[in-house]
């Protein structure tokens, strides 16, 4: 007790697991990252078939298709397929995000071959029965209905709608809106699968207790003949709805807290300022010890937590500050968020703040990638965004090379106070007038139940 603060020694050597990359004749890419500590393998098949490719009016099709993959194949119905996976000790999961569809599972190595055989069935010959597709649609509609009472999901969904122009795919949730989901049918699901799922659009990532040559042999056997014509991916415009500040209130009567979202359109994942922006955001609101969290939580006790983030996508995903604050301090919390946003653009962050952010981001890297699931997920993201092969081996240096001037330049280039959209899901009668008094903009009030903006 009372001993002086210990000095830490030198960091031990660390290498991100070395990945072997190969391509089959049909264009399917295979990435293998051996990790031999435990008898475990994670497999992720990533397909270039994400929600960004949904056509107008068909929002939700990519996610519905990805979910339906694991509802049965040509050889087995849904229950038999689930049973086959689960008897291997693995719960297969499929889904889609903005920029990819994926199927993932974790098994012990002796069961890998059987699991890959099932995975190939799922991707190549899904059953897509009408009843399963209709059931998944109603599950999504049920989720959207429940969201009307769930302030966090509601705030996220409404925030996207006020940040992006209605013509942008990003204005509607990746899973679609009630209006779009109701119109989807099994023919569209089959059509989307036909158009986007093929060897040429798929990467299979395997991380764990395996050898690359053995994995390649297994994958060649299961996916070797998979060829299909593929239509090009639809392009997406991340157009902002408005360049003017606005305040939006979504009614949740008598809510004891307001769910806040403050932000605007951000920038694409492959932007050259990526590392400077990541460090800037860490200082602003990315860490527990960031300005926004310390201000709103530890100084003012307005909230249990507050953070900021850039949602990285192929196109410009949103930049958002998010927090749930006590109803009575909604206006004060918004004022503090706006002040912190101005401050990060006004002057350089301190040397101490930069040191904390860069040391955290670089230092936590080995802690993040202890598991086969985390390594496979990282390699999947690298695939989706086309990150260079040396991305993981150079990440820590790239972070460490960000300077205070870089952070200021990134804040000035990519944070736009004049375009901020402020959204609160909360008790209108308690927060509308105080928000109006902030002088940002006259609040626009909507109800939680209304459908897409007409």
């Amino acid at each position, binding site marked *: *007790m*009372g*001993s002086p*603060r*210990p000095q*830490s020694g*030198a*960091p*031990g*050597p660390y290498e991100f697991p070395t990945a072997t990359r190969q391509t089959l004749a049909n264009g399917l890419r295979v990435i293998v990252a051996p990790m031999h*500590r*435990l008898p*475990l393998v994670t497999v992720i098949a990533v397909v270039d078939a994400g929600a960004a490719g949904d056509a107008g009016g068909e929002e939700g099709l990519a996610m519905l298709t990805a979910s339906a993959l694991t509802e049965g194949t040509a050889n087995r119905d*849904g*229950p038999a397929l*689930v*049973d086959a996976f*689960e*008897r291997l*000790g*693995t*719960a297969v999961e499929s889904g889609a995000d903005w920029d990819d569809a994926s199927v993932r599972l*974790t098994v*012990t190595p002796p069961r890998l071959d059987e699991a890959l055989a099932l995975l190939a069935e799922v991707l190549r010959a899904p059953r897509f029965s009408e009843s399963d597709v209709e059931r998944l649609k*109603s*599950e999504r*509609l*049920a989720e959207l*209905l*429940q969201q*009307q*009472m*769930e*302030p966090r999901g509601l705030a996220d969904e409404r925030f996207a709608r006020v940040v992006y122009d209605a013509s942008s795919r990003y204005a509607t949730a990746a899973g679609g809106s*009630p209006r779009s989901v109701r119109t989807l049918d099994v023919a569209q699901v089959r059509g989307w699968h036909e158009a986007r799922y093929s060897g040429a659009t798929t990467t299979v990532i395997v991380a764990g207790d395996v050898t690359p040559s053995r994995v390649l042999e297994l994958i060649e056997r299961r996916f070797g003949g998979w060829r299909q014509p593929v239509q090009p991916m639809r392009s997406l415009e991340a157009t902002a709805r408005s360049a003017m500040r606005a305040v939006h209130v979504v009614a949740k009567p008598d809510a*004891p*807290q307001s769910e806040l979202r403050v932000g605007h359109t951000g920038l694409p994942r492959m932007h050259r300022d990526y590392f400077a922006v990541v460090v800037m955001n860490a200082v602003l609101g990315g860490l527990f*010890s960031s300005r926004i969290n*310390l201000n709103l*939580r*530890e*100084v003012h*006790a*307005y*909230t*249990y937590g507050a953070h900021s983030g850039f949602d990285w996508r192929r196109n410009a995903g949103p930049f958002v500050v998010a927090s749930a604050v*006590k109803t009575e301090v909604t206006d004060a919390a918004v004022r503090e968020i706006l002040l912190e946003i101005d401050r990060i653009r006004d002057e350089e962050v301190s040397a101490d703040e930069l040191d*904390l952010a860069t*040391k*955290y981001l670089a*230092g*936590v*890297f*080995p*802690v993040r*990638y*202890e*598991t*086969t*699931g985390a390594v496979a997920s990282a390699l999947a993201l690298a695939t989706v965004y086309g990150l260079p092969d040396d991305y993981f081996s150079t990440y820590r240096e790239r972070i460490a090379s960000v300077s205070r001037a870089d952070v200021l330049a990134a804040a000035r280039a990519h944070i736009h106070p004049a375009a901020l959209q402020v959204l609160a899901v909360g008790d209108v009668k308690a927060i509308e007038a105080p928000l109006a008094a902030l002088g940002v903009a006259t609040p626009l009030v909507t109800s939680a139940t209304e459908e897409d903006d007409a």
Partner: protein
Amino acid sequence: MRLPLESYRLPNGLLVTLSEDHSAPVVAVNLWYHVGSANEREGRTGFAHLFEHMLFQGSEHVGSSEHFELIQRAGGTLNGSTWLERTNYFETVPSHHLELALWLEADRMGALLPAMTQDKLDTQRDVVKNERRWSVDNQPYGTWWERLPALCFPPEHPFHHSLIGSMEDLSAASLEDVAEFFRTYYTPDNAVLTIAGDFRAEEARAMVERQFAGIPRGAARPALPSMSLPRTFGRWARDVVEDDVMVPRLFLAFRAPMFGSHAYYAGSVCAAVLGQRRGSRLYRALVRDGELASDVGASTWDLAKGADLFVADATARPGVDAATLEAAVVAEIDRLRAEGVREDEVERALALIETDYVSSMQAAGDRADAISKFATLFGDPALVNEQLDRYRAVTAADVTAFAREVLGEDNRASLVYVPRIPAEGQ
């Protein structure tokens, strides 16, 4: 798959377990204090958790926001959590920062009180009240995790009351309460320390000695009131809650054998057969075939004192009323009891449990937490290595016997959420 373990006790009572693994330059420090909401006195619900927040507000040699800052600057992750019968604190750091993490933990175990101020308490009280609003009051079904124990444990039982606490009790907490709670429960003889990951045992032992050996043992702690309970509820209890929700949700709870007992493992397998993953009975019957529910589950709470809870849950599809939902869940449970489980269902459950278990041993922080759990609740860290064998010993007959003994009508508690305003189906 067995973790290497080396356990010893310091003269002040701290139980230390080391588990070396050099596969990544990462080390986890994990402390469990054997105190949770069960130890709160009347009028102080939520105090154990509020106290957990205070442990991040600095100590004699650590400034008010320094704990988070120092660990994050080291490239580490950290947090704490409070449960009915324990509170834990943990860091995972690059291995060369091991002693920093130990020093931070030792400083707050040894000398928290000099850093405590009314101002810090007031701030954290408001933060916790916001945590309550966020997780309970402003969330659909958010009150379930205080209503369910209230329904399942008698009022005088230490597991009955709210873990997050009432606003009133949080308001009443004082600095004197902080001091008393600290002196009573935050002592080395009421804690276990686990270090897992990349370190050398002799160096870690020396660090533990340097940082923790000087902390004095505590005085005798007040014993918990009797935790023992009859084997069943003796009735079918019921609580129907009108809430701001769009569709009904049911929690159906059963009093179950304590965590760690032989019957517990059969119960855990039974939960997997009944409600875990898409191959489970409830999923097939209610989600896939009946289309009555959008979501189902079953699990145990893993309580090691008095009695555990086995809880099934289901969320209705729009248009399905609470009575229909409950009848469907009950029908599956009754069928399980009448017909028993099949061998292949148990095999499926065990295969999933095995993969999950091995997966949970990947991260140093998870390994350390599992070791601390067995060290705290049973005084035997080595039990972490027995778990798979305990599961593998479970037979279909054991699971059927569990279902018949535990899931009967005289041992049920239904917590039913219904929409305040009936929603129109879509």
